[in-house]
């Protein structure tokens, strides 16, 4: 149960970015009105990044304060609770039928996520103030970005599932706005729409999940749900029906996660989302928003742990997504697309880990991934910036000389992503694979795919590095003059590079005989789930020997494929073209992400669209409205017929009268 609500200051963590957003929005409106007089006017838009970064810094400071406060408490009591905003009350407030109280709760999990969001977020804000300079919507951009951070913080800090949903949809909205930031180009708007709608499919699942939880527990407060999973909802205390309902709730919530975290079958929006400005890709589509699914599963870990089938499904979906994403990234030419599919793939890893019950490992990978993928995206942004908005790697090459700082930091990110030994990604990915291996059964298959994907990851990462920074310069020297980005952009890169390299210390594997800092920190949160899992199928910890073998294998695979990838492409993109010539089918299949997206268009969207038109033109216009108008024309037709009765002839009228009198007489006599 929650401690007393004594920490009102927690509200300031999300509210600061919200205020920042409002101020930036006001600045944008001011700019707009200034532009009415002078189309080139910048107004006060230049203030926007200062405000936004200040808000972020404030939020970060508060998040750090929260972290320190938590650290000072006993492990079991590490929860800070804020007063509630009584949002929705149905019925008498003293004894409501249904109510939603929004309260913010800081515990080790939300604190970790909060630090990542505000920390990485701040860096990206700083970076963006350089990246977006000169854009017409400069202030608007920061308004959206701050709004996003607000929603994301609501998502991780709320204790109510509906509070999570506020953030959940809020981040979806900001994602929509930011993907479509350059809407006048057309396709970003389409990508934004796709992202929003795909997410909505997930959100609908989320809502169903929430209904089921409400029906089971009578509350949407996640801390209460978790607590009750350990008390009156213990697996041995409930019947099959309740178990089924729990499993269904878990399943639908996971459906929501699939949308937000771009898992099969709803991952197709994420690659398209790269239409947004690069800092957006870094913040939303790599570091934070897409990980909210992982957060949700960890937050409700006993719920998921109670349904082994759903857990296996999560792992399966995760590993399948990892494979599809990884293999697709192999052949992409657009640098951002490579990173996007890589993100899809890495998120798949996290779900693979969640499905094995490695909640801590998943969060660990989430954190390291936030560092290195944000770094890679920002690096890619720096490259794109320097290349005058060129994203095709085939038209790059040899950039290491032109942008040394970007190059150096990018290498750090690549190393972490590909899991080169001792980099942050190495440890986190390895922990997930080790857990998978240890789960046995079908998880062995998952493990094999996981390792395969790891190989692919190393390969495409270093292919990307080679194509971008090595080999001959393939751009047009007359028009493109690559240059290093300003310090405001490179400094965040450096910070992130350091984090990417050293992030591993958060969770060193047991064989290193060091404390797994993150797992220990999260232990109170994940304990209920882990307990349930142990109860369901207790298994041994991996022996040190096995673990050494796995570590070694991981390192070897990463090194080998990184090397191959780099060497193959060090001289230029010819191997790509060779694949295209040699196996065009395979290249097209992979390049199009296994043709899943186009299959959706054909199998889902087109029939629905056709159905909508059938509804409009046939069901509605012909059938339903036809009946309505038919009643009208029926009356008219009858009227035209009835008209003939009044022939104007006297004798006809008299006949009607005489006949009428006769009929009435007979009728009355007869009845």
């Amino acid at each position, binding site marked *: 149960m929650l401690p007393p609500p004594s920490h009102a200051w927690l509200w300031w963590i999300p509210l600061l970015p919200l205020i920042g957003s409002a101020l930036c929005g006001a600045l944008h409106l001011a700019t707009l009105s200034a532009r009415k007089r002078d189309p080139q006017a910048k107004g006060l838009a230049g203030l926007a990044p200062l405000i936004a970064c200040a808000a972020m810094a404030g939020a970060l400071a508060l998040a750090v304060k929260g972290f320190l406060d938590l650290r000072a408490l006993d492990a079991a009591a590490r929860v800070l609770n804020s007063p509630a905003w009584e949002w929705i009350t149905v*019925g008498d407030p003293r004894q409501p039928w*249904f109510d939603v109280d929004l309260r913010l709760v800081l515990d080790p999990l939300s604190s970790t996520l909060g630090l990542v969001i505000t920390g990485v977020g701040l860096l990206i804000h700083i970076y963006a103030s350089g990246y977006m300079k000169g854009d017409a919507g400069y202030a608007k951009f920061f308004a959206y970005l701050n709004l996003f951070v607000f929603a994301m913080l609501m998502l991780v800090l709320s204790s109510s599932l509906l509070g999570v949903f506020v953030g959940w949809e809020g981040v979806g909205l900001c994602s929509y706005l930011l993907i479509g930031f350059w*809407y006048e180009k057309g396709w970003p708007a389409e990508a934004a729409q796709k992202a929003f*709608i795909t997410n909505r499919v997930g959100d*609908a699942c989320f809502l169903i999940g929430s209904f089921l939880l409400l029906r089971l527990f009578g509350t949407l407060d996640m801390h209460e749900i978790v607590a009750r999973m350990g008390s009156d909802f213990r697996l041995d205390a409930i019947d099959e029906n309740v178990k089924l309902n729990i499993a269904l709730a878990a399943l639908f919530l996971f459906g929501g996660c699939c949308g937000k975290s771009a898992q099969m079958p709803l991952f197709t929006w994420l690659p398209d989302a790269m239409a947004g400005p690069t800092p957006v890709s870094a913040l939303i589509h790599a570091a934070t928003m897409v990980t909210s699914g992982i957060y949700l599963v960890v937050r409700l870990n006993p719920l998921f742990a109670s349904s082994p089938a759903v857990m296996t499904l999560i792992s399966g979906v995760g590993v399948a997504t990892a494979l599809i994403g990884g293999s697709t990234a192999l052949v992409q030419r657009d640098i951002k697309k490579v990173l996007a599919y890589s993100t899809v793939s890495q998120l798949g890893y996290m779900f693979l880990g969640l499905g094995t019950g490695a909640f801590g490992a998943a969060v660990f990978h989430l954190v390291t991934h936030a560092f290195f993928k944000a770094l890679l995206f920002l690096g890619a942004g720096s490259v794109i910036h320097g290349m005058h908005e060129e994203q095709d790697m085939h038209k790059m090459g040899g950039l290491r000389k032109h942008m040394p700082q970007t190059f150096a930091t990018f290498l750090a990110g690549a190393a972490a992503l590909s899991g080169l030994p001792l980099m942050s990604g190495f440890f986190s990915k390895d922990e997930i694979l080790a857990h998978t291996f240890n789960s046995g059964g079908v998880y062995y298959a998952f493990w094999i795919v996981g390792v395969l994907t790891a190989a692919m990851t190393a390969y495409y990462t270093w292919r990307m590095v080679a194509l971008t920074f090595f080999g001959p310069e393939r751009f047009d020297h007359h028009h493109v003059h690559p240059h290093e980005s300003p310090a405001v952009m490179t400094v965040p890169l450096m910070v992130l590079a350091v984090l990417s390299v050293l992030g591993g210390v958060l969770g060193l594997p047991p064989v290193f005989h060091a404390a797994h800092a993150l797992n220990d920190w999260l232990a109170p949160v994940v304990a209920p789930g882990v307990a349930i899992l142990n109860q369901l199928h207790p298994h041994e910890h991996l022996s040190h020997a096995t673990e050494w073998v796995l570590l070694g294998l991981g390192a070897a695979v990463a090194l080998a494929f990184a090397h191959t990838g780099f060497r193959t492409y060090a001289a230029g993109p010819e191997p790509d073209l060779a694949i295209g010539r040699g196996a065009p089918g395979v290249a097209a299949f992979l390049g199009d992400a296994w043709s899943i997206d186009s299959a959706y268009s054909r199998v889902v969207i087109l029939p629905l669209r056709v159905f909508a038109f059938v509804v409009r033109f046939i069901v509605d216009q012909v059938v339903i409205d036809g009946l*309505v108008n038919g009643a009208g024309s029926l009356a008219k037709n009858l009227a035209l017929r009835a008209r003939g009765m009044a022939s104007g002839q006297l004798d006809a009228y008299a006949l009607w009268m005489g006949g009428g009198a006769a009929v009435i007489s007979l009728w009355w006599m007869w009845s």
Partner: protein
Amino acid sequence: MQYELVLLTFLPLLGALAIAFTPKGAERLQRLAALATTLVVAALGVRLFLAYGDSGSDQGRFLFELPWFSLPSSYGADTAVNFKLGLDGVSLLMVTLTAVLMPIVILSTWGHVHKRVKEFMVWMLVMQTGMLGTFLALDLVLFYFFWEISLIPLYFLIGIWGGERRLYATVKFFLYTLAGSLVMMVAIIWILWTRGTSDVFELINILCRAPLTEQLWLFAAFALAFGIKVPLLPFHTWLPDAHTEAPTSGSVVLAGVLLKMGTYGLVRFCIHMLPGAAVEAAPVMMALGAIGILYGALLAWAQDDLKRLIACSSVSHLGYVVLGLFALTPAGINGGMLQMVNHGISTGLLFLLVGMIYERRHSRALDAFGGVAVAMPLFALFWVITTLSSVGLPGLNGFVGEYLVLVGAFQASPLWAIVGLSGVIFGAVYMLMATRRMLFGALDKPENRELTDLNAREIGLMLPLVALVVWLGVSPNTFMAKTQPSIEMVNLRIAEARRAALAGLDAAPAAPASQREESAR
């Protein structure tokens, strides 16, 4: 006797009379007079809202009652028909919405009503009286009076100031809605004759004990009238036509308030007065509501006319209201009530926005636009906010109602809740499609380059509504706390009816004698 409600109801009519006697050319005077009248009414409405505490009589407050005339009844004495107005939790939000929406609507006519201004203002004000009367009437006959009277102004508004097919649309609207109402009239006649009273709250106490068969017949008659008005699938086809042809302000009032008369009636009469039948009929009504959500959304998705699209979206949104109300759970009813207000605000805003762009561009075809956001950033801002409110983004008004509706519906019937949930997805599909095709993309059509952004009047008239969008989204309790005691009474009745149905009893038919005693009060 309290005169607030009489004043509220008839002030617009007085204003209309005054305007009717202004000289023909004095358009400015007529506009300002209409605006002033509605502003005073809005002030009165807000005052009443604030004065309406969350405790007090649940059988109508600020009561005003005058004997009117009497009609035969099966008891010795005739049925006294009273001119009885009263406010309770069920009508409170609708009355306030009607009062607040009208000045905005009047202000919006500056842009699109240029001919026969005097008549326009007169009809607008008459309509307000009709709508307020419908919501405030606590006498069945009086309710029916206002219910039908409120058709006439809109008939003229569409017929005179409407678009190309205005005559078709307005006649269809009038005939269709009237057809349903007349069947309801027969039911009301029956009630008056057999129960000897036309007082709504007395009837609520009497009719809940009527035999189930009788309740079901009465329910069918009332539900037909309200269902057509709402409009509930499959009685919806008049709505897109009426909306498409109506002038902007007519559409706003139609969507904002007039349709709510139907849902209000469903709560007040079909559910509260006939709980036994409501429990029986709930599965059918929920099914109609849920299918309506999906159907309306698909219909909207297949439109290319912006206004028609929004009209179809109304069918979808009102499906939520019906789904929630007939879940017959506290959450569902509260959600349905809230959703009525939400729909009024957000769809009203959407129609205002469509009107504003139509005034500039003289087209509503989606294909005529593209890149409007570049030319009209403020318009785009308002449009997007409204769209988000309409698709139910948490934090804005649409969400709270929608969520409560779905929670309530899920408790009653997971199947229909999930069908209704599809509206969450498809709602986003068609609204975002419209948004993208209109606002986004390149500004490549020469006609669109010249578009001017919203002016101060247009922004000013939308701001109160936008404020409500946020307020209702962030703090729905401000509103729900006031309606709660009345809705609790509805819940009680439903619970009784449920118990009776579970016990396998025909809702215990009370002896006529005891009914008489009650009605004799």
